[in-house]
């Protein structure tokens, strides 16, 4: 019987199992191998909320989804191939498999006991068999058979079964094994027996898939769309951390991060802690407030300083952000949004901190707010946040979210020589009198005098400052003047922020408006609809406060405006306040999950009257 070969431009694969099954590693290996072959890729890990949820339960399922092929902008809605290592993994993910998709099961794990733990019935399986192409592989048994002479104990043998699954999937997509083999050699360099056993199991899985005929075979049309150059996989948190470090290097300043661990932002602190080799200092404070206030202190002392957090932490930092506003010190606050309010959904994604970022402080307390829109451009926007902070002497709030933080995509590695110049406001030694609140007439940024510089001794603080001298002042007119200066300084950024661009059909009636991490899904939805002849345009915001100068001009070209966001309509409300002459339709999702391309297309079609 000839094998079924499925020709596709792109494909979505998900590996799901118990958190101890090594699914993250399996997925990363598959993604790295595909990347080496030149595919465009987007990945998203799906971690269980509990660190050690009971084995075999739905709460303990760990997944890794990857989407690869010609042009890929998001990790995909539904998968073509699902690997489920136990009933819980199947139960948790079955709704995300495409009709007629392929499901590979480790049948050894489909025992009565495991069905019970997952709250799943043998009966359910029968239906699944009808609707999907199910491949049953006794992976645990076959792995043990492969390793029978390895000298490993039972537990260690079973631990290799993820490699069996990976081998099978490599076969389906006709991928070479050598990248993973090399990886295993390196990872287990001190345990050659484990390296050998894993490699053997990987090949064994591959060979098993060759011999069973039920296996489909996919031919994914390769990308060639990627620009030439050196690439790496990049996730949003590493990108944000590196962007900050890059800004410090470009500005020729030491870097300081004050932070407190919080999901899903902790990896930023972890990344910076690694970079002692660059002289970067990470201060793990006793709380969120300590995180930001040490950073304000470091900024006063002449470092490029930053703090990283998520929603609940941002709430605790509010007062200190105000301190950075009134002292007009450079500071970057990275807020990796998650589901709220309160502790909310720590491991899930949401865009509901927008109002908090814009307004969550006492007094008139303007702060520039920018947002990254893909995992890798967290690098660019973190760099940009550092640049704005240093050139305009202001705290800057960078919004990312759980989806960007943990998602990955191939990223063309930039060269530091090509990064924009950053000109900080430090007053060089020996240039006469220093007036702390004397401003650049154009940007309104004040000068920065670093402790240790002779002759520039001065005091700053949270009390209102007298214009020019910075002395404490209760003069009514002065307070109004300073308040306006602070507001204008931020508003003036519209003169340096890039203009808003439109993607998709320029002559469409419907303009889809969005910001932040929804970029990938919306881009795909708009591209697909455009191909289908449905006219839709897309304007995506990375600059939120202030808005790009041409915002109203762009909006004015379209008849209908639809704002899509993962909250109840905060950006729509903000736009309504800033540009009230347009009517904003809203499309909102608050499930801790990104939009799917399918639901976006539906909504866009509905509004274009094509439904």
């Amino acid at each position, binding site marked *: 019987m000839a094998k079924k070969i499925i020709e596709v431009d792109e494909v979505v694969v998900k590996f799901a199992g118990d958190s101890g099954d090594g699914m993250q590693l399996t997925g990363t290996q598959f993604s790295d191998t595909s990347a080496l072959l030149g595919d465009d890729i987007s990945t998203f890990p799906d971690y269980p909320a509990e660190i050690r949820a009971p084995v075999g339960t739905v709460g303990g399922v760990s997944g890794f989804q990857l989407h690869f092929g010609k042009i890929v902008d998001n990790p995909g809605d539904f998968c073509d191939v699902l690997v489920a290592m136990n009933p819980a993994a199947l139960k948790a993910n079955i709704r995300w498999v495409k009709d007629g998709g392929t499901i590979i099961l480790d049948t050894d794990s489909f025992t009565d006991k495991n069905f019970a733990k997952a709250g799943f019935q043998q009966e359910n399986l029968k239906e699944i068999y009808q609707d999907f192409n199910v491949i049953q592989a006794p992976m645990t048994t076959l792995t043990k058979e492969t390793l029978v002479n390895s000298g490993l104990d039972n537990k260690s043998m079973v631990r290799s079964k993820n490699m069996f699954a990976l081998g099978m999937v490599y076969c389906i997509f006709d991928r070479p094994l050598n990248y993973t083999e090399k990886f295993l050699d390196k990872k287990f360099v001190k345990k050659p027996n484990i390296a050998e056993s894993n490699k053997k199991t990987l090949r064994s899985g591959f060979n098993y898939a060759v011999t069973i005929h039920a296996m489909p075979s996919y031919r994914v049309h390769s990308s060639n769309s990627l620009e030439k150059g*050196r690439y790496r996989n990049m996730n949003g948190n590493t990108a944000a951390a590196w962007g900050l470090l890059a800004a410090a290097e470009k500005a020729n300043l030491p870097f300081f991060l004050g932070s407190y661990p919080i999901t899903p932002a902790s990896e930023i602190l972890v990344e910076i802690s690694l970079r002692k080799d660059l002289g970067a200092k990470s201060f793990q404070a*006793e*709380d969120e407030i300590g995180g930001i206030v040490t950073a304000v*202190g470091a900024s006063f002392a002449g470092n490029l300083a930053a703090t990283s957090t998520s929603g609940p932490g941002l709430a605790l930092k509010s007062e200190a952000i105000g301190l950075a506003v009134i002292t007009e010190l450079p500071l970057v606050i990275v807020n990796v949004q998650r589901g709220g309010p309160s502790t909310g959904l720590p491991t899930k994604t949401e865009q509901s901190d927008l109002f908090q970022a814009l307004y969550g402080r006492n007094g008139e307390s303007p702060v520039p707010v920018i947002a990254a829109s893909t995992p890798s451009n967290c690098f660019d926007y973190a760099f940009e946040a550092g640049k704005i902070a240093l050139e305009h002497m202001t705290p800057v709030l960078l919004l990312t979210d759980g989806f960007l933080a943990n998602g990955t995509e191939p990223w063309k590695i930039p060269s530091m020589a090509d990064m924009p110049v950053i000109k900080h406001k430090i007053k060089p030694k020996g240039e006469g009198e220093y007036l702390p609140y004397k401003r650049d007439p154009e940007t309104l940024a004040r000068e920065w005098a670093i402790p240790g510089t*002779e002759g520039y001794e001065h005091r*700053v603080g949270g009390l209102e400052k007298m214009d020019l001298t910075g002395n404490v002042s209760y003069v009514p007119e002065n307070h109004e003047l300073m308040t306006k200066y602070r507001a204008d300084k931020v508003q003036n950024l519209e003169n340096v922020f890039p203009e808003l661009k439109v993607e998709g059909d320029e002559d469409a009636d419907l303009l889809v408006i969005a910001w932040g991490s929804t970029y990938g899904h919306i881009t795909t939805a708009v591209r697909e609809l455009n191909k289908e002849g449905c006219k839709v345009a897309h304007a995506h915001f990375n600059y939120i406060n202030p808005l790009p100068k041409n915002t109203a001009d762009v909006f004015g070209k379209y008849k209908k405006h639809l704002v899509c966001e993962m909250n109840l309509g905060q950006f729509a409300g903000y736009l309504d306040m800033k540009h009230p002459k347009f009517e904003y339709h809203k499309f909102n999702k608050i499930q801790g999950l990104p939009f799917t391309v399918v639901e976006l297309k539906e909504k866009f079609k509905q509004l274009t009257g094509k439904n």
Partner: protein
Amino acid sequence: MSDNKYTFKDFKSDQEVRWCPGCGDTAVLMSVQKAMAELDHKKEDYAVISGIGCSSRFPYYMNTYGFHGIHGRAGVLASGVKTANPKLSVWQITGDGDALAIGGNHFIHEIRRNINLNILLFNNQIYGLTKGQYSPTSLFGQVTKTSPYGTVEQPFHPGELVLGAQGKFFARTIDTKVKETTDILIKADKHVGTSVVEILQNCVIYNDGAYNNITSKETRDDNQIWLEHGKPMLFGKDKQKGLIVDGMKLRVVHLSDRISEENILVHDAHEPDPSLHLALINMRVGLGFPVAFGIIRQVEAPAYDQLIEQQIEEVKSKSKIKNMDDVLNSGSTWVVE
């Protein structure tokens, strides 16, 4: 020692001092300015950092780099300044409310980290700036605006907290004792690590005379004992009283035929075991003891900021990564042709 390039006047800012006339803070300001003039740092290398409260206005009156922060956060603000720029001599000005109530968490953690800075804790046992509410050091039963029937809270004893947080340097002084305070501050600055100096400070408006039983002419000889490392623990008008250890406890004795100076405890501030330091810190007039002043504990240990700098040097010397381009190209990468 000092080459006397500065006098205390060099450290006065042009801002008018706004504390109430007679406030103990004014004398401390003088002590700090004198200490700074005598120390070896350049004027531009001083950073005076505060939180919120009467004493926290301090930086405005100093002609140095200064930062008046937000309530409770003096400790973290100062920690950030020192960690980011370890060359600076950092002086944290804080009060009993700022450091022990709203900023209590930061206070214990900066001491635990042993960041090389000086904490001047102005203890007036009251909230002055907000006009007279009780503080975490107000006495049990003290009548204040917010405790009209007397507090029912036990006060913190700052020194106890410092030792509980593994503090390495603790001294106590009195606002009006400019000479002694100046001397202690110089030693505190020279000590590597977090140096906490508790200053008993009289708030003439809301808690006047809080320390009268310690500081008044009639009582001061009997109720103060000034400790000096290596010297016997003697006090009283003619130094006729002293401290001995009796069992596990301190006891006050009078010198006599039977008890000579040799029987009296000799102060060892450098003893790493904190037990005796704690006992000295906890002596109170109401318990029949004099209150201990001077440097009670001074033990050497590496400071946080030093360790950070060391670690950076070590990692730098070993790592192949020298700049951001190296970081960006590190790990697994591939080339698209």
